[in-house]
């Protein structure tokens, strides 16, 4: 019954936006060249709504923009000091919960977690570092799993299932002991994972890396060296 020509009118930070039925707040905002920060969301994957970085206020209630559908007359707050602080705090927590050594990470400059911290101008986290014990799985001939850098966004889990048609990754444990697991008795080498799997490319951090790529792009030419994450959306044309 959804008519794709039908428009739903809502406002984001006071600006009127026309969305389509079935769109989430994040999708409608993106079509209107409004960037809502996100981490666990990825195009062509089922939204998980787990990282909460895309939290907005929709009609006064905090919702994850990647899962909340738009509605007529909806009033969305996105770029407010309250929400910026909430997002900053979430990013801070992701940094202190893991072991993120950006200075030697191959993903540095292309990492979405780092890029979000840059966008928010974070010079140091406000929370104490946990320095947790995490392990590394280098068993696979072409793929490295470094759980020190894993933020449990689940993008690889969903990409493996939904795009690769495999079930290479999953989560085990809960709370602080939750970790990325592989679908094999011991390690990644025992799975059907391949270097060109979408699941590997889906990792926003340096937790899943293709081996022997190294520091392929020079400093100064990397994705987030000069322009903040999301600026490509903010500079895009408004879609009808």
């Amino acid at each position, binding site marked *: 019954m959804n008519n794709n020509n039908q428009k739903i009118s809502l406002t984001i930070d006071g600006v009127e936006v026309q969305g389509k039925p079935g769109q989430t707040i994040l999708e409608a905002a993106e079509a209107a060249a409004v960037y809502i920060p996100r981490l666990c969301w990825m195009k062509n994957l089922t939204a998980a709504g787990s990282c909460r970085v895309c939290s907005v206020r929709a009609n006064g209630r905090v919702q994850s923009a990647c899962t909340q559908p738009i509605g007529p007359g909806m009033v969305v707050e996105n770029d407010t000091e309250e929400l910026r602080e909430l997002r900053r705090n979430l990013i801070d927590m992701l*940094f202190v919960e893991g*072991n*993120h*050594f*950006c*200075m*030697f*990470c191959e993903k*540095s*400059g292309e990492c979405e977690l*780092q890029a979000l*911290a*840059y*966008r928010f*101008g*974070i*010079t*140091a*986290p406000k929370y*104490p*570092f946990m*320095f*947790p*014990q*995490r392990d590394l799985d280098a068993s696979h001939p072409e793929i490295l799993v470094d759980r020190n850098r894993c933020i449990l966004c689940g993008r690889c889990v969903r990409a493996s299932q939904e795009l690769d048609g495999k079930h290479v990754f999953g989560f085990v444990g809960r709370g602080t002991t939750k970790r990325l697991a592989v679908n094999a008795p011991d390690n990644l080498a025992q799975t059907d994972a391949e270097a060109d799997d979408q699941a590997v490319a889906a990792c926003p951090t340096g937790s899943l890396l293709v081996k022997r790529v190294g520091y392929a792009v020079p*400093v100064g030419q990397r994705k987030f*060296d*000069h*322009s*903040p994450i999301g600026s490509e959306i903010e500079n895009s044309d408004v879609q009808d």
Partner: protein
Amino acid sequence: MAKPKVATTSLCGCFGCHMSLLDIDERILELVQLIDFDRSPINDIKSIEGPVDIGLIEGGCCNEENVKVLQDFRKHCKILISVGDCAINGGIPAMRNMVPLEECYEEAFLNGPTVVNPSGKVPDDEEIPLLLDQVYPCHEVVKVDYHLPGCPPSADTLWEALTALLTDRPVELSYELVKYD
């Protein structure tokens, strides 16, 4: 009027951040017009004479001496700045934080593949500062007023922060000056 005083030190760092400070190139001539150095490896003064306007800390705290120096800086510096990733998050030295201290000692002095140590003992001379249980970021030990991330922070980042503070401008780092690598 006396020029503002700047003190610098490297705790558990590699002096790379100090090298980056020297990387401001000819602007260093401008800088010495603006400031006088108190304790710093640049002039080899070993203890703070104080009072100091701006203290620059490179490196985190890995041993008891680092903590004492850092506390001394905090006591004498009006503004204290963590310079570089090691001061801010422990950096490379903090990779030992996931390894029990005893194992670190054994690897370094007893069982490591390149160890030559006929005594078979871990050095325990009282001149050697005791290692802390882990490497701590500076702001987890004393209050730190500003953080300049980077490994090292670029010369432009250091220049921008220093000149802002010395000319009473707010420290506002542009997007390209906040980097973690």
